[in-house]
């Protein structure tokens, strides 16, 4: 187990981060190249104020008319994303690892907060999963992969939570935690999870298209 | 006196009197008689028209069918076989608009029509009280030439005395 763990937090981790960063970069550069060729409409109407407003109104809860139509769902996906980003970045355990490896680290949140956020993320993930099954207009669009992605996204949180609280087999949980975390990192550039980066671009575009050209609010 | 007479046909008995008067005048004046019908458009802005077969496009088949029908209906009332002085024209759109437009283009001398008509050939014909229908109103107001609205079988357009004097 120890060897496996060392491997996972050693070379495998390097590999996952490399794939994550390089993958996202390559995806971005590739799309940029395509856009210069085929999407001139994007470049002719750039106005950063509209891009910013288009992005901002969709980052805050209930910032858009669409979100206000489904307020509970909006709150859930907002909390889900906050936890999804905040916990891995600001967890003290993660920061200790960074410190040990490179002597750098970010601010760490109190463990209690991390715990609460983790539980919230898990609950939100359950809600999202059930919603996907329950709402007809979402179910009809969803394939196996859409359900799997929710599970894979939640897995590091579940396993992390269990490991931290030393429930079930600690070593197993830690290994699973790292594996699922790395899996997630590797998947991001190649799937819809790339929206992490691409959200900003597509929102900018519609901000230019509706806002700059017509003055219409795309939120 | 008149060289071109435009008769506005609506395919119902209401304008038969008008047809008789127009025919009479055309024969006596040696004028060309144009039997004109407009397929009505339901919308202000689109090209779909109302026919007996329902709402449809005003395509050449529709026009041909209509021309044949008009020929059937009106030619039996004319004594001569294959009268050369009678021409049948059909259009689609807003009736009074097309009538005035045609009258302007062809420079007709006189328009003859009945006073009101049915709008939807699929509805049963109701006996309405005599009134001045929309097309009669608009045409008589905007036509580039005199308009005769015939409301009863006794009305004739040709001058009786002159005609009698001619034949006497």
């Amino acid at each position, binding site marked *: 187990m120890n060897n496996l763990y060392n491997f996972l937090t050693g070379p495998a981790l390097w590999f996952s981060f490399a794939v994550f960063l390089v993958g996202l970069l390559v995806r971005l550069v590739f*799309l*940029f190249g*395509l*856009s210069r060729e*085929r*999407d*001139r*409409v*994007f470049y*002719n*109407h750039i106005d950063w104020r509209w891009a910013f407003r*288009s992005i901002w109104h969709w980052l805050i809860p209930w910032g*858009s*008319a*669409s979100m206000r*139509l489904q307020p509970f769902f909006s709150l859930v996906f907002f909390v889900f994303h906050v936890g999804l980003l905040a916990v891995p970045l600001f967890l003290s355990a993660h920061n200790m690892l960074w410190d040990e490896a490179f002597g750098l680290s970010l601010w760490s949140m109190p463990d209690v907060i991390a715990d609460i956020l983790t539980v919230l993320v898990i609950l939100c993930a359950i809600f999202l999963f059930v919603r*996907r099954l329950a*709402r007809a*207009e*979402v*179910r*009809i*669009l*969803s394939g196996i992969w859409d359900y799997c992605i929710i599970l894979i996204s939640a897995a590091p949180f579940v396993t992390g939570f269990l490991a931290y609280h030393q429930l079930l087999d600690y070593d197993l949980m830690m290994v699973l935690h790292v594996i699922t975390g790395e899996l997630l990192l590797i998947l991001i550039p190649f*799937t*819809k999870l*790339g*929206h992490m980066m*691409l*959200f900003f671009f*597509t*929102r900018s*575009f*519609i*901000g230019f*298209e*509706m806002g700059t*050209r*017509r003055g*219409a*609010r*795309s*939120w | 006196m008149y060289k071109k007479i435009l008769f506005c046909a609506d395919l119902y008995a209401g304008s038969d009197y008008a047809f008789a008067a127009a025919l009479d005048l055309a024969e006596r004046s040696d004028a060309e008689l144009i039997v004109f019908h407009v397929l009505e458009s339901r*919308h*202000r*802005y*689109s*090209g*779909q028209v109302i026919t007996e077969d*329902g*709402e*449809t*496009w005003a*395509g050449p088949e529709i026009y041909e069918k209509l021309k044949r029908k008009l020929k059937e209906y009106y030619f039996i009332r004319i004594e001569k076989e294959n009268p050369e002085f009678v021409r049948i024209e059909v259009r689609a*759109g*807003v009736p009074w*608009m097309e009538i005035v*437009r045609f009258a*302007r283009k062809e420079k007709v001398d006189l328009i003859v029509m009945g006073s009101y008509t049915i709008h939807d050939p699929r509805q049963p014909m109701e006996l309405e009280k005599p009134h001045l229908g929309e097309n009669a109103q608009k045409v008589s107001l*905007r036509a580039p030439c005199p308009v005769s609205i015939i409301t009863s079988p006794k009305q004739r357009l040709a001058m009786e005395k002159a005609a009698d004097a001619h034949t006497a």
Partner: protein
Amino acid sequence: MSTNEQAAVKAATETENKVNTKKIREILDANNGARIRTWLSICARCGLCAESCFFYLAHNKDPKLSPAYKFKNTLGELYRRKGYVDWTFLKKCADIAWGECTTCKRCSMYCPFGIDIATMIATVRAILFSQGIAPEGLMRTVVNYRETGNQMGMSSEDFIETCEWMAEESSEEIRGVTIPIDKKGAKYMYTVNPREPMFYPQDLAMAAKIFTVAGEDWTMPSTGWDCTNLPMFAGDKALAGQVVRNMYDKAVELGVKNILITECGHAFRSALFEGPYLAGYQDGKTPVPVIHSVQLLYEYVRDGRIKIDPAKRIKEPVTYQDPCNVSRNGGLWEEGRKLVAYLAEDFRDMTPNREHNHCCGGGGGFIPMGPEYKARRMASGRIKAEQIKATGAKIVIAPCHNCFDQLGDLNKEYKLGVKILSLKEIISEAMIVPDNLKPEEADEEA
């Protein structure tokens, strides 16, 4: 229509079984840019777009009518299968692309990523058109555009004669009304929807009267006067580009300062937004500025060039239909409302309104598509009908020909008991004619 034209329309709408895969792949490749690629891969399948679409809402929230479902099963499938599809699939796409979407773009405002589904449906239409599939009604107009440069197949001669006729008639009410043809260097080149001169030339007369009272320097071109662009909705991008170029070229030739669009929705979208790209202008700019009637009429009234007789303001409750391509996709919702404030005393806005208002259901080519699509139009228009009923208005102002006809149909179908009016109608009736323009005869009611 000539026999050749008839054959072309018939061929295009008959069942043929040969799919030209090469053409499909060409179009797919040409459109495989960053936008479409990203949209297809990033859709999170969250379902938020569903409630924005009036088709979905009107049909008891049928999940197959959500925008995401529509694009996923048409363009998504086409890309997934790399263009190797069969005729049955294409027919199904045609049903969705023309029968279930008006490209109103409301869904792009409700998607968290701002995915523009309307652009994707337009791409599907282009692919279908390349295979000869398109609704018969649109194909007829495409033939007309090719032959005569306008959708009604009206000759230049007939057009100019109609203008003369309308000028003659109007001069009985207002002195000196003319419709100047091909005046070089005029401030506005007025372009119309050919259905106006064809079926309702009073629109031309009303415009002429308004311009005369406002003292405007305007002209009507003898060619390139059709600002509509049905090939854009039929998926014939090449012809759509040609149609717009006709108008632009004429404007440049005459040296006019602006192109003015009549009260028509998609003409504005075509002339100002899609047009430059269709016509091949890489920078997306029109050669001459394009102004819409709603804006100009508002400016006339705001600046006092046209004064509205207070006694003739509309007393009955009035509501304003936001045509998708004038409001949401044209940016003119405030101007429209401010203008209506001058014209009516009791204004009641619909909910939702402005750029979030619903499509009337007659756009995207639906009205010209013809009687076989009417039932669908009426079913999906239920949302708009309910909006109108909820306002309690007796008059609906619709500055768009398609909205006008569609609302007229909805009025009969849902027994709304409203009257539909265009802005020109109201203004030409209610405007104060200055004494020097009054006709020479003593006071006569028009």
